[in-house]
């Protein structure tokens, strides 16, 4: 974890002692107690020829497909750290969004504003990108415990990326 988040222990101590303790004591959230995050290291990477690349779409909008996936636990004040893998043959209109921390007006009108899967498939057909990985990684980006993000969610996404042999990831936060 240190390589990804070198100040994690300090951050977690502050998170637990201040924000989490206040929540557990009062049942209310006080964002003034939430420790700021500033990573000191930016990951390095080689250039990628996107016209030959297998690109993985990752969205934090809380997207899922009803009847296939359980919705995210959007109402949980402590967050939801699970992911959904959504086959790219499901078009944007198949998605629903379980995430209580942004206005859904735009995504309800046009899901591609947060899950641009049809655009990316068109770009593959046009040769702009080499491939679109056959599954979208979806999570619900309200996740106050960054320790759980680093220890639980990110390794799961990295494993998906390895399994799908992707060359690049395109993250769309909400």
């Amino acid at each position, binding site marked *: 974890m240190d390589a990804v988040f070198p100040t994690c222990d300090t951050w977690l101590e502050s998170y637990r002692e201040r924000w989490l303790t206040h929540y557990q004591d009062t049942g209310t959230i006080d964002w003034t107690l939430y420790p700021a995050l500033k990573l000191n290291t930016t990951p390095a990477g080689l250039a990628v020829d996107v016209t030959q690349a297998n690109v993985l779409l990752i969205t934090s909008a809380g997207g899922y497909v009803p009847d296939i996936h359980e919705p995210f636990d959007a109402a949980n004040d402590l967050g939801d750290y699970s992911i959904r893998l959504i086959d790219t043959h499901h078009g944007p209109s198949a998605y629903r969004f379980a995430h209580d921390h942004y206005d859904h007006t735009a995504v309800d009108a046009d899901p591609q504003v947060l899950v641009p899967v049809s655009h990316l498939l068109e770009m593959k057909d046009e040769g702009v990108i080499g491939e679109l990985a056959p599954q979208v990684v979806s999570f619900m980006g309200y996740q106050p415990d960054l320790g759980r993000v680093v220890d639980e969610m990110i390794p799961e996404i990295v494993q998906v990326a390895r399994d799908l042999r992707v060359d690049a990831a395109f993250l*769309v936060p909400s």
Partner: protein
Amino acid sequence: MTSWNVGKTVGVAPPRATMTRLSRGATIGNPGDNAQQRRVIAATLALLAHPAPLALVMLDEK
């Protein structure tokens, strides 16, 4: 990645990112504006042509 939130994006130090003035909940573009959405995606993916890390790239999209 692409984002409308400069502060949070700086905090997580992504290897490559574009920034816009779009709204929260409409990261890729305005609803129904396929041309804008494609511009944002293309500009972001174009960053892959360069070794990371890159400085944040501002897009004139709102």
